């Protein structure tokens, strides 16, 4: 289920914690598994648990508790728009609406070609750059005006 590269990355995370506390590497391990598979199916969650010597339920609890894990398949590009108050005061809701229009999907949906998934997110701690959007759980896109959104989407075409 997990590639050699993924396992090597998980092994590196394990060095951070005491040998008897492998469970601490669970969050990273699930993230690494998600990077490889795009989302966390039950089988992937179980494979991660097995590798760390944990009961599958321990990994499932974490996979379902934390919002950045994908428990359903997502598009190639996942866009998470912050609509919380500081972003909303600077056009966050408008950015979300604009993206919905452009992509023709609502929050929590994926385009038919499997390219884009749009999500509404909670505060990402980057309110000074409002409105913000997180790209594929990794890159923060700042000042998401309609022009900036157009530019970002063109890059992804």
């Amino acid at each position: 289920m997990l590639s050699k590269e993924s396992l090597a990355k998980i092994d590196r995370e394990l060095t951070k914690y005491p040998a008897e506390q492998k469970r601490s590497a669970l969050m990273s391990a699930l993230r690494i598994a998600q990077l490889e598979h795009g989302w966390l199916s039950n089988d992937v969650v179980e494979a991660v648990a097995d590798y760390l010597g944990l009961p599958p339920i321990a990994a499932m609890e974490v996979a379902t508790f934390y919002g950045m894990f994908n428990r359903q398949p997502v598009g190639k590009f996942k866009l998470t728009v912050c609509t919380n108050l500081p972003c909303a005061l600077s056009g966050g809701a408008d950015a979300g609406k604009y993206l919905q229009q452009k992509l023709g999907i609502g929050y929590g949906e994926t385009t038919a070609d499997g390219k884009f998934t749009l999500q509404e997110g909670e505060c990402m701690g980057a309110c000074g750059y409002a409105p913000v959007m997180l790209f594929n759980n990794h890159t923060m896109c700042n000042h998401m005006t309609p022009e900036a959104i157009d530019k970002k989407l063109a890059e992804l075409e």
Partner: protein
Amino acid sequence: MATFAKGVVFEGVDFDDPNSWRLEEYVKRGGYAGLRRIADEKLTQDQIIAEMKLSALRGRGGAGFPTGLKWSFMPRSFPGQKYLVCNTDEGEPGTFKDLDIIWNNPHALIEGMIIGGFTMGATVGYNYIHGEVFEAYERFEEAIEEARAAGFLGANILGCGFDFQLHAHHGYGAYICGEETALLESLEGKKGQPRFKPPFPASFGLYGKPTTINNTETYASVPYIVRNGGQKFLELGKPNNGGTKLFSISGHVNRPGNYEVPLGMPFAELLELAGGMRNGKKLKAVIPGGSSAPVLPADIMMNCTMDFDSIAKAGSMLGSGAVIVMDEDTCMVRALERLSYFYFEESCGQCTPCREGTGWLYRVIHRIEHGHGRPEDLDLLLSVGANIAGRTICALGDAAVMPVQGMLKHFRSEFEYHIENKRCLVDH
């Protein structure tokens, strides 16, 4: 985003230089001199704690607890493993200062943690960084590697006979992990659900071992204090509110951003620094300390100074220093609806009053905003709030209630207007 630095955490940082965050540059501007002072002058743990107490540094994560006192709670001569943890799980709407620290000056935090480790006899530290700022997490890992390569982390640091290792750990989308015991659970690889206190982390923390948890900005202030002495830090601010503080300003201002200024600066001056109100609008209200802090109307706010005591006296709290500015066109019902949804979404579900109560708060405010409010709804909100506050394991329940109480205290008429007229008092 603007960053205005005139103080401690960003001392000497060049925000236009892409390499300013690196170890080499940090050392050039006096970095790691605090740690060297400990080695050269053979400062003791007690001496450092005394300096910390003198500095009147108060925790920058929101609670404002005196750092020196917190550090003295650690059983530092107690044998066995002890841990140091940094809380960079920033996710309270309005707060974005710690991101700026780990992005622009990560070594100040690393040096502060090494000094903390030495002072409290902890040999391993973790910095818990929320997953949404993954690029900053990656940079912080790189900074740790630089410090390790330079001999500031590892065994027998600077020949002091003291060992310290530091690791970065990331979250993955759960606001609750900013609560220190939820953070510890999360660091142990579990759901981030807060623990009962006592026992407090200083006696039963990470993996059941004595642990001290401080905020990013708190640790990043430590090198300055050790280098220059607690008295100098204290004098930057005002009594009982030592030092400078980062204020994250968002909302309807011309230049949102982080502003590091002396504690006690008048709010009007801070607003000016942030470029004043956007589009020349009038100030209506301010949430002075992150979304959990009760809102304050413009007239009260304009008479406040930005420090723990002044904001508390005005009936709110300085919290993490996240200042959300709202202009005259802001609908307070809609603003509160969005905040209440946040707490509903982020409640960890462990305690019934919070899990169910945050849903009630959100749904009632939602129906007021959407023209279905009932005359008795405002009393209902206060009653639900009273049944949440103080009845939960952690403070998230209280945090969900305080914005509701603040809004109803200062802007009740706007809610009543909404209920009667089924529309907003302001055009937006």
